[in-house]
């Protein structure tokens, strides 16, 4: 769709707000509706929109496929790592109350960390699905 001038300009204006909204949903999820999953999907949608209009080669230049794969795994590792950290501190798996002295603080640290893991994994998993399907049979390098 590289010849669609209106789409290109509108997307250029829209993208920052989509990403900002995604980050807001991610980091404000304790106060307002949303959380890692919703934020991840919103950010992935922004990237997909960009790829659709500007071509996935350009999008893969911004975010190389090898990085997407590794970040997807990193998200799961962060989540599991928080659980293991709680175990190492003497609690159960994913028992956040071991992470800090005050219980509510510990819980909030745990929640923010695992939501970060969820967000990373969901964003990158959606992008892996998109790029694998759209660039089938071609190199995943830009």
């Amino acid at each position, binding site marked *: *769709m*590289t*010849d669609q001038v209106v789409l290109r300009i509108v997307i250029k204006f829209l993208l920052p707000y989509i990403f900002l909204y995604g980050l807001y*949903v991610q980091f404000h*999820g*304790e106060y*307002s*509706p*949303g*959380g890692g*999953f*919703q934020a991840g*999907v*919103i950010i*992935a*949608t922004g990237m*997909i929109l960009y790829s*659709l209009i500007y*071509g*996935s*080669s350009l999008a893969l230049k911004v975010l190389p496929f090898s990085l997407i*794969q590794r970040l*997807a*795994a990193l*998200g*799961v590792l962060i*989540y*599991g790592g928080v*659980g293991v950290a709680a175990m190492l501190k003497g609690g159960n*798996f*994913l028992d*956040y109350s071991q992470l800090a002295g005050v*219980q*509510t*603080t510990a*819980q*909030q640290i*745990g*929640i923010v960390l*695992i*939501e970060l*893991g*969820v967000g990373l*994994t*969901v964003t*990158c*998993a*959606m992008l*892996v*699905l*998109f790029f*694998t*399907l*759209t*660039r*089938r049979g*071609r*190199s*995943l*390098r830009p």
Partner: protein
Amino acid sequence: MNEIFFQAGTAELALLALPAFLVVTATAIVFSRDLLVCTAHLTIFSLVMAVIYLVLAAPDVAMTEAAVGAGVSTVLILAALVLVGRDTEAVSPRWQRIGFIVMAVPFVILCFVAGDLPALGDPAAPSTQYLAPDFLQRSEAEIGIPNVVTSILASYRGFDTFGEVSVVFTAAMALMLLLGPKAPAPGAGREKKDALAPPVRKEASHD
């Protein structure tokens, strides 16, 4: 059901009109002969579903439905359509009718059963009787964040969410194993064309 009819607030009206719209869209999906049209109908279905979730005061589910159902999955289905070809033969009209009947019978049964469901926001409904008040009370003292949904999903039910994240990750990895890139051949040329982009038109536009 009667309560819904008599207190005709905006939410109740929306909850009558939107499901009707869903039924129309679903019927259109079953009977559509073109996969592209079918995809468009699926998107409309998801969007209406998102609005219904919003009316039912579940904004995070609405957000997910709008972004995943109407956004990402539409693009993924379109990408899959590019792979298999849009003019893939549809099932015969006879099978479409059979499919419609198979779906319509449970729908009618569910419509009859729906009358026995507790009304929207009924405080005596079983789902608001047992665990929900308990979580609402404990969350403030134990977790200390205002959004109880997040505190349940991320803390009380953290193990379930870990499972969900693993499922998403596994799905992405599985698709990559099935369809992903093979080891790049030495000296393989790079193509510029995009799978989803239409072929570049050659100055043949009739103004």
